[in-house]
């Protein structure tokens, strides 16, 4: 492949947004925009004729690689099993439960300085946190702890494997 065309392909592929001809032009001050455009149209043509899994498309004022629409069901299937992460709020709540367990919700609230109802519910649904028991005091508050799944997800043999705060602090000094 012609080098200029290959470079354009690399740029479009690595760009965080659909790449416009103007932006490319800034990188190649000596090159005519029409020429850049010609190369990109050639690439579009080539990908179309090849009938592979990806296409180069002109979208939103720029160029972008996309998977062929015919295969969207497969891509969706792949993405469905996409591992879900935790929000920072959920992670903080989880950290309090992990390190202070068994712990009542009021204590987690106090620790985080906000009402943790939402993130706690999410963690219970994700089966990272569970009800360990109830306290025999007025109101019989629920005590929360972490689950086996929590250990699995964080790749821990047991809770004693969790790094202690002191150990982390030592790293920072």
């Amino acid at each position, binding site marked *: 492949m012609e080098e200029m065309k290959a470079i354009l392909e690399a740029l479009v592929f690595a760009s965080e947004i659909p790449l416009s001809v103007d932006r490319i032009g800034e990188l190649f001050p000596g090159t005519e925009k029409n020429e850049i455009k010609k190369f990109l149209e050639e690439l579009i043509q080539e990908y179309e004729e090849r009938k592979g899994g990806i296409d180069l498309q002109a979208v939103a004022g720029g160029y972008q690689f996309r998977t062929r629409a015919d295969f969207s069901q497969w891509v969706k299937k792949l993405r469905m099993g996409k*591992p879900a992460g935790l929000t920072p709020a959920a992670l903080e709540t989880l950290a309090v439960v992990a390190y202070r367990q*068994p712990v009542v919700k009021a204590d987690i609230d106090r620790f985080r300085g906000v009402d943790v109802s939402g993130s706690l519910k999410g963690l219970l649904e994700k089966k990272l946190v569970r009800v360990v028991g109830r306290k025999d005091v007025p109101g019989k508050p629920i005590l929360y702890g972490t689950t086996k799944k929590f250990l699995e997800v964080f790749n821990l043999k*047991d809770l004693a494997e969790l790094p202690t705060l002191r150990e982390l602090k030592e790293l920072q000094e």
Partner: protein
Amino acid sequence: MGYEIKLDIFEGPLDLLLYLIKKNEIDIYDIPIALITRQYLEYIEVLRSLNLDLAGEFLVLASTLIHIKSRMLLPIEADEEMEDEEDPRAELVKQLLEYQAFKEAALQLDSRPVLERDVFKRACPLEMSALPEDLEVFEEMDVFDLVKAFQQMIAKLDRTERMEIDVEKMSLADRINEIMDKLTERKHLTFTELLEERIDRRWILYTFLAVLELMKLKMIKAYQGDSFGVIRIFLAVE
């Protein structure tokens, strides 16, 4: 700050030593210790005069070198003993060779096509209709993030709220979870049953401490028939 500058010159005392050995074209297996010690100390002086904050490790190695030098100066009493006695430099040579190997390995790593430096992956997010997130699937998460989240939180709390959480406390949490699981399943248990006939002292200790903690938290109740009778443990709240 000074520490950073120093790191730009040598990655550490072993790095400096290795540099001196290469500069003098010395056989690493037969280091002329007097010469190297002198040059090493000179370099340290130079670094110091440049007002660079020398890390303690540089001084530790200096004293090791001096120690080796003095041992090599000791008269050898009998030839046979010489055979048995290890070369005082042996340990240092081993350390240097290991360090050199890792230093090379580091350079080799750096010479690979590094992601986001030499090669790049697709950066544009895929345009797709909203996808349901499968709640049951998780990517493996990093414990480091969890600890950091907790640490950042307690940093904001009063000093009285701060507490050290150590391995012992977490071992106790493990035991508490296990005991509560069993109790939920079996309604009541004896202390002996909790021990599962294991005789590991730490295990017995943690089981005992966990029971005490659970009683303190009013999560369980323990009953004893008579003063030497069986201790039965129940959930405090069904």
